[in-house]
């Protein structure tokens, strides 16, 4: 397989996964915003959380003065200058797919293309929050459909593995990003009010679609250390970092036929390193102070794995 093709497969999957996670984060924040009526510092800080997870607050501030829900929803969903806006992610995914449409299943291309065409017909300037809700729902449904097509139509060959690795890497990074931002916000809030804030941990679970699952396993109390270990290393939760990284590793193993060769050695070492880090957090409780640096390190490791992965398969 051409390196360029592998790279497009990888990025197509990442872009769709990114669109889906951003849609979920924004959606759960929009629903929460309806329930919590208090405005002011907390509300603004809540919206900043969303911006930091899905885009960048700093960049947003260069374009808007205030943190208005409608502006933020627009910025995350449709803004052309936000490189990670859902619209841009979907368009990138479609362009990735278009450059490799002879490689992917016809149905996958058609679904992606049909979605792109519908988006082309929309007039985003006049959109209401209600329409945004529907859009986010459509994005999630699209992502599920796409994963379904990949799972049910694709030969378990190289193309499949590159798609899967892209998805799992993106997902792992997103979870670590959510945790990082939430940790930061909790710390700020605690310093401000001198009380424990479990509220953000609840949001983290919601952002990652893990609230229901968490409640089934743990009592309905928000104990930060429990939420953390659930999101970082709970083996049965498909958005926990460990789960995702296990699957990245599995994908690389499949690509390499279970063998470590000279050119893939560095990549395997990096993956081993991350696994070892998980062991630490599983067996020795990490304090909330330590978690920040841990997550920073993990995000760096993720970047490094992306980098090594690209190097191993000669992505341009």
């Amino acid at each position, binding site marked *: *397989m*051409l*390196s*360029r093709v*592998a790279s497009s497969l990888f990025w197509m999957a990442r872009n769709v996964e990114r669109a889906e996670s951003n849609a979920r984060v924004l959606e759960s924040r929009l629903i929460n915003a309806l329930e919590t009526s208090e405005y002011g510092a907390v509300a603004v800080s809540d919206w900043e959380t969303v911006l930091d997870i899905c885009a960048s607050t700093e960049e947003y501030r260069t374009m808007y003065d205030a943190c208005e829900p409608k502006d933020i929803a627009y910025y995350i969903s449709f803004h052309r200058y936000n490189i990670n806006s859902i619209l841009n992610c979907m368009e990138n995914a479609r*362009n990735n797919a*278009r*450059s490799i*449409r*002879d490689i992917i299943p*016809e149905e996958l*291309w*058609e679904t992606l*293309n*049909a979605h792109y*065409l519908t988006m082309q017909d929309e007039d985003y300037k006049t959109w209401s929050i209600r329409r945004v809700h529907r859009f986010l729902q459509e994005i999630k449904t699209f992502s599920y459909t796409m994963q379904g097509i990949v799972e049910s139509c694709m030969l378990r060959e*190289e193309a499949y593995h590159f798609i899967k690795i892209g998805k799992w890497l993106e997902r792992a990074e997103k979870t670590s990003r959510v945790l990082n931002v939430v940790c930061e916000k909790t710390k700020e809030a605690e310093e401000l009010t001198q009380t424990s804030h479990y509220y953000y941990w609840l949001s983290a679970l919601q952002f990652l679609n893990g609230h229901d699952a968490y409640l089934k396993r743990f009592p309905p109390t928000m104990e930060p250390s429990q939420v953390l270990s659930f999101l970082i290393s709970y083996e049965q939760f498909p958005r926990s970092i460990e789960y995702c990284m296990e699957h990245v590793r599995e994908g690389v193993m499949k690509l390499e036929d279970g063998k470590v060769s000279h050119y893939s050695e560095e990549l395997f070492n990096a993956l081993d390193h991350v696994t070892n880090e998980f062991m630490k957090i599983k067996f020795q409780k990490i304090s909330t102070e330590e978690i920040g640096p841990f997550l920073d390190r993990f995000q760096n490791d993720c970047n490094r794995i992306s980098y090594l992965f690209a190097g191993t*398969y*000669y992505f*341009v």
Partner: protein
Amino acid sequence: MLQNYPASSFYDEMMADAESTRPHYEKFHRILQQMTEEELHEKHETAQLNFLRQGITFTVYHKDGGTERTMPFDLVPIIIPPDQWETIERGAKQRVRALNHFLEDVYNGKKILEDGIIPREFVENNQYYFEQQAGGLSLPHKNHIYLAGIDLIRDNEGTYRVLEDNLRNPSGMSYVFQNRFVMRKVFPEFFFEHDICTLEHQMSHLHQALLSHVPENSKNPQAPTAVLQTPGMYNSAYYDHVFLAQQMGIELIEGQDLLIKDHVVYMKTVRGLQRVDIIYRRIDDEFLDPKEFREDSALGVPGLVEACRRGNVSIVNSVGNGVADDKAVYAFVPDMIRYYLEEEPILPNVDTYFLRDEKTREDVLSRLPELVIKNVGASGGYDMLIGPQASPEEIERFRKKIQETPEQYIAQPTIQLSRAPAFQEQRFYPCHVDLRVYAVGSDDVHVLPGGLSRVALKEGSLVVNSSQGGGGKDTWVLRKGGSEHA
């Protein structure tokens, strides 16, 4: 349904006169009449949607970049009876054989110029004549033309004439297959009663012909590695490239995927470098190799032509084919056929006048409103004047152009392009059509049964190019031995 279909002096593909259809259209017409207008409209819509959803598009360039568009599909097919097809087929093969001799000759010896059959400057001053790059290349089977797209029109007598030879990167073959595919899906009722030459297995001809271009130094001559090179997804014919690569089961690559080491061409794969033997390139000569052509080409691969020169790789269609499909050289193809093959041309040309000759020029300038003027270097319906449809301002503009650079233009009589009914916006009306047939091969030339019928959907328009709003029709070649009264 076809009542009120206006009869006129144009040759109509389907209707013999206002009342009666031509014999080979009778069955089709009968089935058509059993459908209601709503039914037709619905089917028409389904067909258009099919193209859109599948992303069967071409790109139209304008100042803000490109827009993807689908080629409008028209449901009334062009039906060709077997005897007529046989003439087309033989004529196209003959033409391609002669043109291939010509290319081999002008890049190796130039006998035809020595013998004064074609004025030397027509070849040597041609902007697509690349003697330095293509001169003396030794090609597998001495074959320059792997795929040709020959554009045919019918005049008001119904005689097929060649309008243009496309020997560089003729596009549109994907539409031939997709038109048929969509037609079968949307109008299955037509296919039960017609005995039509199938398009299946055509791809294996294409594939076999491609693989026969094994370069001298191939390491694997029994199973050479062929690839299709595209300029990328922003190219207007990108879908064509995707389709051909996919159907032939070869890698679709871009210039950036290739690398040359010691004059050998490799593609960059996730497992390292893999040797490439045959490149079916769909990128213009000028962009092929920055070392030999435009230095600023980002699409090309430096050293590609040298690799070809050394027999390490084959480039098809070969470098420098443009000199043979030029609108001025076109006028000499009948002479080439007589010169190289010692045969009489089977398919006639359209009369062509050269404007560099003063007497002809004066004559043409005095008759501009009745002629078609074409720039010899342009294609796709650009820089051309259709006299009978042009405004006085346009005619004056071309008069100036011709006076400034007469050698850049040719004139042709306005051909009364044949017409066929088209169904658009819930009604039938006559539209001008042409036909692009595809000839593929190396030692043997094979012509795909049918081809792309292009239709000028704008009423009265003579321009069938997709970039100018033209559409496509399915083309049926009726089988020999079946009833001629299809």
